[in-house]
């Protein structure tokens, strides 16, 4: 304590600005907050946490945000008490050149540390997650879970027996056509095939690959020696100006030339989306870009296998796992079901139980029971259901019951008197817990602090620093009086804007720019003209300070919008904007720098303003 007092006195005697801003102490506190945040993230993350919660390791995703906000408010409030105790500027003490610029810098650094503390928290949580889970083990476990899950209870739709049949899928990795391609023959519905995803895109037209509802020779085709009959394509919108049609149903002629209707959506939901560990393009994206955006871009390249319209409406990236699932596990699942390989199935389910134990997933799976049910392959029409809970959220799962109850009796330990012990109702595991573990690992691996997040921290820090600096310079009363003046100006602005027949964003931006410019010019004029009352100058100065950070940004945005041309692409439904000048003019970082520049310029004026006579 004495040492701290001594240090304080030293600063007071030698560096009054440092003493006044408490920048060194606050920076130290900021570093401490980072350390605490990292430790909090590291120590608070355990297997239970990973099981129950779904992190994405970004700010706002964890409850830490509340602690963080509370912590920052307390620290800043305490600091502000010290900060506003002394004011050299208002006391007319001599100030060195660029006094307020230095003050802004001194406030910015510690505030940034305080504001960006979630980065440290998430780093801690990520580090712990990566230490708790191993990628190699997860890969192996994912295979077990994905195959086993085909035989376990899930939701009603996923469990439909006929959808577990896994007919041989259309033997192409993709089936699509590009409507925008000039060679497209609408009458013929020609197809583009991509042999492999997505690095080497090979497009070629297969023989007669179009569909009609009527089965005839004209819409069948031979692919890899097999005969296919196509029909019923669906439209999928990938982005605003790209449409593709994907075949979701087709007939396969079997060896006796009988048609088998194939729905590509026949594949069951994949429990663990382990596709992302294996896809080289995605791994490359993780390694190279370390950004989720890139991850999604990479995934999106390969999303065209899924065929449920709703999937695309909700989240396009969800489709890729289905395709992967079909490719990776369908053969094994089919083999187990077709061959009725009970022994293998029991082994698989025992492995599954091991996985549950390792990740501490609540569950009660009897391999013998499940296997017996599957081998019977004869179910009641109704479903049993069981409620499970994940972090107090209730989930209802369904499970079929075999008609022939003798299959249960043959099971070891089956007690007809306490049948419920072996009823399907007790064959459950916490599906969401299991998926959370895997998902959290993936998120931990992927998550980095995105540019947008850094920009957010920069903006927020600059805002806080400016607010404190602002009230260091002007009296609150001047600021309060300036508010209704702003109100009147904006009403006038609105009236003028409303009177324009064709209101475009360019007009609005231009007028805001003009409004801010007028405020600045008037302020300068008031500053020079002694006949203008100091009270009016104080109000105009408040207004100038408030608008200074925005004026250059608005100007840039206006220039940017001024040079925008709106055109329509061939596909026609959505307009596509083209900019002559680069988009950097309105990027977050550019606007931030313009705000900073505006502040730095306006901070040249306080001394002149303060010393102007009334």
């Amino acid at each position: 304590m004495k040492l701290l007092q001594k240090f304080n006195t030293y600063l007071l005697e030698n560096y009054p600005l440092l003493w006044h801003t408490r920048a060194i102490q606050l920076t130290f506190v900021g570093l401490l907050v980072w350390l605490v945040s990292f430790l909090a993230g590291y120590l608070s993350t355990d297997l239970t946490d990973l099981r129950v919660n779904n992190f994405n390791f970004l700010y706002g995703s964890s409850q830490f945000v509340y602690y963080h906000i509370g912590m920052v408010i307390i620290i800043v409030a305490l600091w502000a008490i010290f900060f506003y105790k002394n004011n050299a500027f208002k006391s007319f003490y001599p100030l060195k050149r660029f006094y307020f610029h230095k003050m802004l810098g001194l406030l910015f650094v510690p505030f940034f540390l305080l504001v960006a503390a979630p980065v440290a928290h998430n780093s801690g949580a990520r580090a712990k997650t990566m230490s708790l889970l191993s990628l190699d083990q997860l890969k192996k476990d994912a295979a077990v879970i994905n195959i086993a899950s085909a035989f376990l209870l899930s939701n009603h739709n996923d469990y439909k027996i006929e959808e577990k049949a896994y007919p041989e899928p259309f033997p192409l990795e993709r089936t699509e056509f590009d409507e925008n391609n000039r060679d497209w023959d609408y009458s013929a519905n020609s197809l583009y095939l991509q042999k492999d995803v997505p690095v080497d895109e090979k497009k070629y037209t297969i023989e007669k690959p179009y569909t009609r509802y009527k089965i005839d020779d004209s819409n069948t085709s031979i692919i890899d020696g097999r005969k296919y009959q196509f029909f019923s394509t669906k439209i999928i919108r990938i982005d605003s100006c790209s449409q593709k049609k994907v075949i979701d149903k087709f007939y396969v002629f079997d060896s006796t030339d009988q048609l088998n209707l194939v729905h590509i959506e026949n594949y069951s939901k994949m429990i663990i989306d382990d596709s992302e560990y294996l896809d080289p393009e995605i791994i490359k994206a993780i390694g190279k870009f370390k950004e989720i955006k890139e991850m999604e871009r990479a995934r999106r390249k390969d999303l065209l296998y899924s065929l449920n319209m709703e999937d695309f409406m909700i989240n396009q990236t969800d489709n890729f796992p289905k395709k992967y699932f079909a490719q990776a596990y369908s053969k094994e699942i089919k083999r187990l079901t077709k061959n009725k390989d009970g022994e293998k199935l029991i082994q698989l389910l025992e492995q599954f139980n091991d996985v549950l134990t390792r990740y501490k997933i609540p569950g009660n799976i009897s391999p013998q029971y499940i296997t017996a049910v599957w081998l019977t392959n004869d179910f009641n029409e109704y479903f049993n259901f069981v409620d499970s809970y994940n972090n107090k959220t209730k989930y209802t799962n369904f499970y079929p019951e075999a008609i022939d109850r003798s299959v249960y009796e043959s099971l070891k330990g089956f007690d007809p008197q306490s049948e419920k012990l072996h009823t399907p109702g007790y064959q459950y595991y916490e599906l969401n817990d299991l998926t959370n573990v895997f998902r959290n690992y993936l998120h931990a691996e992927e998550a980095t602090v995105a540019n947008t997040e850094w920009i957010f921290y920069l903006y927020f820090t600059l805002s806080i620093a400016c607010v404190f600096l602002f009230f260091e310079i002007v009296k609150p009363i001047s600021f309060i009086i300036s508010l209704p003046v702003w109100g009147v100006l904006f009403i006038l602005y609105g009236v003028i804007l409303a009177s324009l027949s064709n209101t475009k964003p360019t007009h609005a931006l231009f007028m805001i720019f003009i409004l801010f410019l007028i405020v600045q010019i008037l302020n300068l004029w008031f500053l020079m003209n002694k006949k203008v009352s100091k009270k009016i100058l104080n109000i105009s100065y408040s207004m100038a300070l408030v608008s200074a950070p925005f004026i250059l940004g608005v100007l840039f945005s206006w220039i940017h919008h001024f040079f925008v041309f709106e055109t329509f692409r061939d596909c026609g439904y959505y307009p596509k904007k083209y900019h002559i000048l680069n988009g950097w003019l309105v990027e977050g970082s550019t606007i931030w720098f313009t705000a900073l520049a505006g502040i730095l310029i306006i901070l040249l004026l306080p001394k002149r303003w303060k010393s102007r006579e009334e």
Partner: protein
Amino acid sequence: MISFETKKADVASLIKNGDHHLGFRKLIDCVLDTQKLENYRQCIAFTDWKESAERSSEEFTQKSLELLGQLEISEAAKTSSKPLLEAFGVQKEFSGGRFKLGEIDMIIHQGDIWGLVGENGNGKTTLLRLLCQDLSYDRGVINYGELDTNDKYSLRTRLTYLPQRTPKWYGSLKSNLKYAASHYGTKGEENELLVMMYIIRFGLWNYRNHQWSQLSSGYKMRFELARTFLRKPSILLLDEPLANLDVLAQQLILEDLKNMSQSLAHPLGIVLSSQQLFEVEKVSDKLLFLKNGAPTHLATANEEQSEELTVIELDIDYQKDALIKMLSGFDSLQIDFNGGMFVIRVAENSALNKILKLLIDNNITIKYFRDITHSSRRLFV
């Protein structure tokens, strides 16, 4: 300017004659004049010794004379004959013609104390704000001697204006003083020592760790003066510094101002406004009376005076008619009764003694008798 040796002799005389309070304050002024950190250190140690327990008069005398004997000045006084401030024909008119001040002519030199007197609302504060560049003036010229007037902010840091109502400050008294000193270039150890010296000088030793809310009005004013002196001002503009102070505190502060304006280390000019006419005119070198914004230069006690009327303030239990009858022999006799006092004006220089004799001869009990012929008080009664 008074020489350092004269100052020392004065201090020695005061201390030897048992006038310890005044002697101690003047001793601090001498220490400050030396501008030597070692002297500051010794003086602070001496004060600490003095304040830490009840000390005998002999002990105090011996120790203070020891300290005084060690004091030597190395630099000659930084005196300058150039005016610190010159104002010629300065006028200020507020919009709507509701008030007009001026024309004001003033020349302030180092060591000068200007007293501004006048009733409320007659332009004293306005004039001070004009002089410190807080208000713009319509006509006239104000020159600030050697101060750089190009950078207005910098100029205002040198023109220290102390308003009547000083704003609240936060934190301890000492840290506020250190903060001010630090901004004015007093760094490191010198900062601590100089701040402590002014704390001692203005009698704030026992209050140095107090907050604003723990101080009385008098000590708040002392703090403001200490802070102002740490700013090393060349011109000090004080608006009603004596308001809210008791009579003793008023005299002390005026005395301190008078002494400190004569500082050999940092001589300065002082302009102070007040309604305590008697006290102000006692310390002022120049007196400016403002009536509805119009200035009248008055002679002070230090200046040669020639007045046509003798003016007496008198409090007696007597009827006005009887008094007029008793004094009817004087020329141009004018007697006013303002409710509490008689104010007698007669056109005779030697009337004072005659009136006093008449009162005694008539066996009239005199409660109060004051010759205000040369005092600005005559303008107010």
